[in-house]
Structures are given as C-alpha cells and as structure tokens.
C-alpha cells in the first residue's frame, strides 16, 4: 500500500480531478459539439453525425461522473461549496444531459414519425448542457458570486464554451466522416473557431483582473516565462488550425485528424492555464486543496485503486477506439 502525506495526496487528487475534467471536456466535448451542430435540415447527415459518436458517448460521459466523484470523495467540502453555489445551473446541466442522452437512444427506436422530435431534443439538450457548463465555469471564475456583471460574464462564457464544443465536435466530424458532411464540418469548424478564439482571449484578459491570485501567477514568480508558453501554444494552435482547415480536405483524406488534435491541444492549454490561475484554491479565494482534502487513509486506498485500474481503463478505451477506427458506419445493432 501507499503511504503518502496529506499534502502529497491533496496534490495528487487535485491533479487526478483536473485530469478527469480535462478528459471530460475533450471527450464529451466532441459528442456535445456534434449535438450542438446537428443539421436539422438533413436527415442523412444527422444519422451519420450521430453514428460517429454512437459507440463512445456513454464512456465519455463517465468522465464527468469520475470528475464529480473525485471532487466528492477527495474534497467533500469543496464539492458541497461549489455545487451548492452552482445548484440551479448544475440542475439545468443534469436535465440537459438526461434529455440528450436518452434522445440519442429513443431516436433510433421510436416510430419514424417521432424521430425528428428526439433529434430536436438531442440538439437542444446538447446546446443547453454546453451552455450550462460554460455558465458554471464563468461563475466559478468570478468567485462563485452572482452579481449583474458576473452573471453577464457567465452567460458570455456559456456561449464561448458552446463554441469550443462546437469546434471540437466539428473537427471530430472531419475525422470521422467524408464527402459533403465533411466539407460542411470544415466550414463550421472555421466559424466556431473564431468564436472560441474571442472567448479564450477575453477569459485570458478578464481572469487576472478579477482574481488577485491569477494576476500574481501570470505576472510574478519564477515561472512567468515558462507559463507564457501556455497561451502562446494555444494561439499558435489556432493559427495553425486555421491554415490546416483552409487546405482540407486533402487527397486520400490526409491530415483529417489534425484539426481534432489541435483543438484538443487548445483545450489542454486553456485548462492548464485555468488550473494554474486557481492553484492552490479549489473554491476560488476561499478554500485550498490542502484544507479541503479528506483523510489520508481513505485517499491512500483510492489512490491504490486508481493506480491499478486507470491503466486498464486506458487500455480498453484504446481497444474501443481501435475497434471503431476509420470513418463512421451507419449505426446498426451489428
């Protein structure tokens, strides 16, 4: 068994929680994005779009359960403080996730005349889920307080996160589809990319202004120049991504995976940037990870399980992605 100190465990579990949130944002991000951009005027495209995420979405959503679960078990007081402050938007998120999750299955099984109804539910649920996540992020950045300005900022953040998901969703479609739908996804990726860029830029400017902690991290301290690489990498990905999107599609579908990879890197840099801004706080300016962490013995036990199981999860996730590699097939129960 392991015997880490309380300090080390708090850091380990903060890292694990952060990793789960990041993986959730990337993985469920692309399937939410596909839902956000579901073309209501083209049934064949809808079928293909949904087929491209069919085998994966259940597992993608599990990362949210893990992220919230880790927060709950490793930082119970933070879980309670954050989610109590976000109670209504979080409920909206849950209801949206319920509706889109079931719409996905119902659309394939109801009478044909009711299918469109569930397609609309799927799209609306995806938009609402993405918006409420962005809204929650916005309120979190503003220190979990509801003022006129923080609510406006959170609304703006909701739109930007939806755009970010739309971006990664469309780059997923570029990777998994071909023909007209792929062309359409390339066009949509450019549009979503612009929104996303504006959003990230404004968070970069606003966050240090409202959070003293963030200001300090990005302007003082020994690692400032190293940290500067993070936004630089992010904006370089936007520039490169735009160049790539202008040239796609290429012969033999070369490079179709590039936009998705670049978007994933953008997500990663943004996330690391945010995490650095808030460290060591888990509840902004109120509670640090060291104050909020659970008892050592329990965290050691979970860490032991995580060390054994997470590589296995990674392995069979790889198997699933390998089994469904290439362009999406029509979604049939075999």
């Amino acid at each position, binding site marked *: 068994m392991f015997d880490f100190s309380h300090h080390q465990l708090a850091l380990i579990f903060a890292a694990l929680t952060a990793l789960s949130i990041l993986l959730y944002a990337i993985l469920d991000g692309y399937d939410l994005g596909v839902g956000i951009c579901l073309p209501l005027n083209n049934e064949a495209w809808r079928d293909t779009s949904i087929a491209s995420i069919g085998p994966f979405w259940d597992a993608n959503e599990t990362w949210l359960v893990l992220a919230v679960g880790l927060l709950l078990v490793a930082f119970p007081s933070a879980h309670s403080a954050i989610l109590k402050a976000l109670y*209504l938007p979080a409920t909206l998120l849950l209801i949206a996730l319920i509706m889109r999750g079931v719409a996905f299955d119902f659309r394939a099984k109801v009478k044909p005349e009711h299918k469109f109804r569930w397609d609309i539910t799927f799209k609306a649920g995806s938009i609402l889920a993405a918006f409420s996540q962005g809204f929650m992020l916005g309120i979190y950045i503003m220190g979990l307080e509801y003022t006129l300005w923080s609510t406006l900022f959170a609304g703006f953040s909701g739109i930007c996160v939806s755009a970010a998901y739309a971006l990664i969703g469309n780059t997923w479609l570029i990777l998994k589809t071909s023909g007209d739908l792929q062309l359409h996804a390339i066009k949509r990726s450019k549009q979503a990319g612009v929104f996303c860029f504006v959003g990230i830029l404004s968070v970069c400017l606003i966050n240090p202004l409202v959070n003293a902690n963030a200001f300090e991290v990005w302007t003082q301290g020994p690692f400032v120049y190293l940290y500067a690489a993070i936004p630089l990498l992010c904006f370089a990905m936007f520039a490169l991504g735009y160049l790539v999107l202008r040239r796609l599609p290429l012969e033999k579908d070369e490079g179709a995976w590039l936009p998705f990879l670049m978007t994933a890197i953008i997500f990663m840099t943004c996330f690391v940037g945010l995490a650095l801004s808030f460290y060591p706080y888990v509840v902004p300016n109120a509670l640090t990870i060291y104050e909020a962490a659970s008892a050592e013995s329990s965290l050691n036990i979970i860490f032991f399980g995580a060390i054994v*199981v997470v590589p296995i999860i990674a392995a069979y996730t790889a198997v699933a992605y390998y089994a469904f590699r290439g362009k999406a097939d029509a979604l*049939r129960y075999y």
Partner: protein
Amino acid sequence: MDVLVLSRIQFAANISFHILFPTITIALAWLLFYFKVRFDLSQHPVWMRAYRFWVKVFALTFALGVVSGITMSFQFGTNWPGFMETIGNIAGPLLAYEILTAFFLEATMLGIMLFGFNRVPAWAHTSATFLVAFGTSMSAFWILVLNSWMQTPDGFEMREGVAYATDWMAIIFNPSFPYRLSHTLLSSALTVCFLVAGISAYRIYRGDNKKAPNVTLKTALFAAAILAPTQAFVGDLHGLNTLEHQPAKIAAMEGVWHTEKGAPLVLFGLPDEATQSNKFSIEIPTLASLILTHDPAGEIKGLNEFEGAHPPVAPVFFSFRVMVSIGLLMIAIAWWSSITLLRKKRLSALQLKILMSMSFSGWIATLAGWYVTEIGRQPYLVHGVLKTADAVTTIAGENVALTLAAYLSIYCVLLIAYIKTLLNLARKAVDVEEYDLSLPGLPEQKTQGNTATRGAN
C-alpha cells in the same frame, strides 16, 4: 416548504427513477451473455434473434440508467453535505471504486457490444458482452456495500464526529451486505424474467409465431420458476438479519407496536401512530414469532422500545405487504405458466394476458422493497451514526422545490416514452420475417403478408 422534506422527496424521486433501469440492466446483461453464448455454441440464428431484440431494450435502458445516475453524484454534495462530511472517509473510497472498476468498464464495452458485431472477432464481441454484465454486477456490488454499511455500519471509529475506517474487510462485508446483495441481484433477475416474459407474451399475443419470442418466453419463465421461490428464501434470511441489527425496522414492517411473545402475523391492517395500534387488522396468531424467531412463543420487540428512534410505520408496513404480495404472485404465475408450457408447449390467451400485465411487476416490487429498507432506516441516514435531518443542505427551499418540479416532470415524460418505445419495439419485431436458416445474420426484413393481415394497425 421545509428544505429537509423537499430534499428527501427529491432524493427519493431521483433514486426511485434511477433504480428502475439498473435493476433491468444488471440481469438483462447476463441474459444477453447467455443468448450470445448459446449462439456461439450452436450458431442457431434464433439465439441471435433473441440477442438482437433484447440488446436494443438493453441499450435504451442502459442510457436511462447512466443519465439518471449522474444526478446522484451531484446531489450528495448539494442536498446532503452532512453525509460526506461525516462518513466521507468510508463512502468516498466505495464510490470511487464503483466508478473505477464498474462504470468505465460497462460504458466502454457497451459500445462494442452494441455496434461492434461486424467490427471485432466473435470472441471479442462475446467477451464485451460478458464484461458489460460483469461491470453492471460490480457496480451493484459496490453500491450495495455502501448501502448496507449505512444500514449496518461496521469496521470504523468516530473521532470528533467524523467516521474513520479501521477495518476495510469489515466495512465491505458488513453484517447485512451478503443478504442485501443476494436479495437485490435476485430482484433484478426476477424483474427481467417478468419483463422478458411479458414482452414475449405481448409479441405472441399479437400473432408473432416466430421461434425467438417463444424461446425467450420459455427461458424467462423457467428461470422465474426457480428464482422466485429462491427469492422468498433469501428474503426470509434477510429479514432475520434485519431483526438482529435493525429490530425497529422489523417492528414497523410487521406492525408490532408493543413487545410481545407469540406475536401474530398481521396480514393486513391500518397502522395508526396516534393510538399505537393497527385498525381493522387481519391476523394469524403466533405466525410472526414463528417466522422471525422460528419459535411460536418467541419474543418480538415492539415499536414501544424505540421511542423517538423508529421509522414512520405506515409506509414501511404497506410497502412490505406490496413487495411480499408481488413476490408470492410471481411464484404462482411462474409455476403455473411453466407447467402449462411443459405440458402443452403453449400458453392460453389468459396466461399471455396475465404475463403481459405483469411485465413491470418487478419494478413495483423492487421499489416497494427499497422503500421498506430505506424508510425503515429512518430517522437515521447511517444507522445509529448520522440522522437524516443532520445531513441536510442549507440551500433555499424554493430552489429545491423548483428543481424537484423539473425532475418530476421529465421523469414522467421519460417513463411514458420508455414504456411506449418498448411496446413499439415489440410490435416492430412482430413484423420481422422469420430467419432463413441458410442465411444467418442478414438484416431483418418486413414481410408483406404479416403487415397486410394486420390491416389498419
């Protein structure tokens, strides 16, 4: 309204809605694995047909289970912060192990199970089906460890109002866990047996004379004929275990207000908290003592011994009777139909109708059983350790009222949509042509004839 009452209703609504789906997927996954293995061994298309139909039901049910379950991971912190503050050191690792060892496994393998038949080798598809079944059972294992620990806590010590683990084996294999796990897994199996029997009966009743619904009907009924009496036996053991560790719950279940020797079994009555008695009760003398202590003169502790610390009597009392009645009905129907099937090879229209009407009887029995055990644990959240009222949130009551209304309305919509879709899937399956033995695995096609005879339907 009071935030405690609202939070309790909301948690009860969320978890009641949620349990409907896992209780199907836990056993249905194993049934699908059985169909798949039979197909692998015999290559007979009827097993693939059975698999193909029920895997669709499984996919829909699983999706509802996943999305309704996410709600739970939020509610612990938002509505019941005192829960994790007090027993987080115990509940945390158990929940974490559930997510790590079960949730990812089932969710990832489900993709291969549903859509991977043509993408992976046959053995890999069968393995994926097995792993989904294994994952759902692991999930049941961990969550029942936690639930049982809340009923019969063990292997911990309290320091400054917070629980710390002292012995993980004692926590996991706490006194009520083996009984609760068996009882819950069997209830899942019976729910699925009657769902499969009911939907198969519906197909046969609507003129589906293909082999698949008859095979699934037979499988489900024979399994039920064995499992329903087993459940009665396990339920009895579970009751004896509860008598030992939570006597107040048993007193409420049996409606025993005052400690007595040779207590009668109250078949029916109206428990009245004001007068501490049962009105209009129909009783069988000394039977409760005989069942619970295996001695006609045995003493049963009454509710009077747990003044101020016993659960509300009426809901526990009635839920228990609902559960037991459905259980007995299940035994009777399973045996009657199984014997008819063995003798005459087919069921009468009346029997088909009874089975159809019992399609969701497992749900009612499961919910009733959970109400017995969960309401029966009140006023405690963790028996003897934490009272429910001490764990509740400080959120404004109006906010909880608002979210509760939202949850309840979508649950109604989803429940109706789920049942209608299941029936729709069954009707669609009626129109599918019987398999051609020379061409296994071809896509299903509609026949002209069958559709025509159904006319305006």
